[in-house]
């Protein structure tokens, strides 16, 4: 499935005019989340850590509460909206950094495996098989047990979550591309391998890699929120969407929105990225046909 023209990426953005409503809504949500990620501290109406013992479990305004706390307050009297904005920011930063590390690491290893072949290839693919055969959350928890939870360890950990998928995909695509005429042509002109890979092959295989990124991104959000939900990811005073769900969990019976609001943000974000990714994949497929 070699993609043989770079301007496809441009065509992709201009053809977005005919996108169905669900895709446009998904895009709108993603833009909003991104804006929250950047401007959360400015948007938050209160200090998200400020506790107010006399104002615990205030109802959100849509259930008859006051507009001072639009989404009510939690078990320590903290403003839920402010917490939600800051949590979205943290989760987004972890997911973006994690996805990028994962994509770079996996792609680099895929290129390495394809370039050297033989033992190096077997070694990298052997590791990727081993990684793929154990649920990553088990591996992640084991590492956290041994090294403790620290934001940097945590981001690094999320960043190795599915490198093997990029590695395998890249390896296959590179091996395929290397047999194409254009790579051979550049090689004959005497270009160095690194130049061939980065300047000529990478632009041609970037499409499937971007699609892989959209598949991976929601999974990384789910991994982050899952680990934080277990109390082993992001630690207070930082907050994340998973941590908010975990903290609200004990109060489901009296204040269900404490779980539901961060839960809805997680759900809508993963859903939006999945929809956008599916759409993107259909576009690529259509171009291949």
């Amino acid at each position, binding site marked *: 499935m070699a993609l043989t023209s770079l301007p496809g990426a441009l065509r992709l953005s201009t053809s977005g005019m005919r996108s169905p409503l669900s895709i446009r809504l998904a895009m709108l949500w993603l833009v909003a989340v991104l804006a929250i990620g950047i401007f959360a501290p400015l948007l938050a109406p209160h200090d998200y850590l400020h506790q107010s013992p006399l104002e615990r479990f205030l109802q959100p305004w849509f259930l008859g509460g006051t507009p001072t706390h639009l989404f009510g307050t939690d078990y320590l009297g903290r403003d839920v909206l402010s917490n939600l904005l800051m949590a979205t920011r943290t989760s987004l930063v972890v997911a973006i950094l994690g996805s990028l590390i994962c994509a770079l690491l996996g792609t680099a290893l895929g290129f390495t495996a394809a370039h050297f072949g033989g033992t190096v290839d077997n070694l990298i693919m052997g590791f990727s098989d081993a990684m793929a*055969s154990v*649920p990553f959350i*088990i591996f992640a928890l084991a590492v*956290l047990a041994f090294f403790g939870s620290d934001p940097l360890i945590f981001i690094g950990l999320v960043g190795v979550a599915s490198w093997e998928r990029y590695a395998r995909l890249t390896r296959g695509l590179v091996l395929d591309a290397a047999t194409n005429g254009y790579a051979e042509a550049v090689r004959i002109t005497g270009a160095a391998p690194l130049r061939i890979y980065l300047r000529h092959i990478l632009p041609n295989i970037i499409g499937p890699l971007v699609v892989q990124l959209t598949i991976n991104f929601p999974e990384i959000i789910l991994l982050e929120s899952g680990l934080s*939900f277990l109390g082993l990811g992001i630690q207070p005073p930082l907050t994340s969407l998973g941590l908010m769900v975990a903290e609200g969990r004990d109060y489901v019976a009296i204040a269900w929105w404490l779980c539901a609001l961060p*839960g809805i943000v997680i759900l809508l974000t*993963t859903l939006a990225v999945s929809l956008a990714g599916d759409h993107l994949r259909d576009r690529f497929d259509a171009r291949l046909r």
Partner: protein
Amino acid sequence: MSRFLANRLLRALITLFLTVTFVFIVLRFSGDPAEQMLSPDATPEAMQAFRERWGLDRSILEQYLFYVRNIASGEFGFSYANGRPVIDVVTERIPKTLILTGAGLVTLILIGVPAGIAAALRRNTAADRITMSLAVGGYSIPSFLLGLALIYVFAVELRWLPSSGSGDWRHAVLPIATYGLAGAAGIARFTRSAMIEVLDQPYIRAAKAAGIAPIEIVFRHALPNASIPIVTMLGFNVAGLLGGAVLVETVFAWPGLGSGFVRAVSQGDLAVVQFMVLIFTAFMVSVNFTVDVLYAVLNPRIRLSDHGAH
């Protein structure tokens, strides 16, 4: 077929070997194992005995061989949290997890595969779109949120089922439903695309042209061919169930391997963590190997490959 299976068996062994080595390296790099594995108030004699038993006073290579030999002979030490043998602490939780994940797997197949087939047969109709929208939604919701939502509806509001624990069958309903609904979403999408691909093949069109009844086409000609990728996908689903057990068992306070693992991790009970990682890996390796065997049995191109058909 035998060459294919030998290849897969070799891979399974490599995975086990890498995991054992990984655990060994991590354990050595994260501090003095004697201090980590024993409680802080252990006597110097106990520490010394531990170091001797695990060969910590020797070279790294000898330590590694020692470690592998101990594992091979079932020596896993004692739980730091309660002093009981790690083997007992872990094995008593295995049946609890097998019940939930087994029932969850059956549920997700029973919901997901028929939904996917139905959607493929009614491609691009409203029924197809609704099924697939639900599947995309189910695929995007984290299992712990789905579990909490089910608790809210069925335990808090309706009061039909208990919210946590593991007394009788009623405690198992909500966790099994969580596994089933979350897993069915992915398998429904996958079954749909596998079926659509098969239904577009010339031999299906030929069967239709020959006037074979639609139901026979679906179940005798299309489904067996679509089942090859579906079975492979189910292998991933088992991995998902096992990983999901960590979250779902915690949500429902179900005393299985998943919640036990989380507890051991939070308590820093490294002896238990180490053994559980090995158990999880061994389990996944055998599941993947089973999937490979099934795959070989279902796929005639591999089944017959030793007879020169490949």
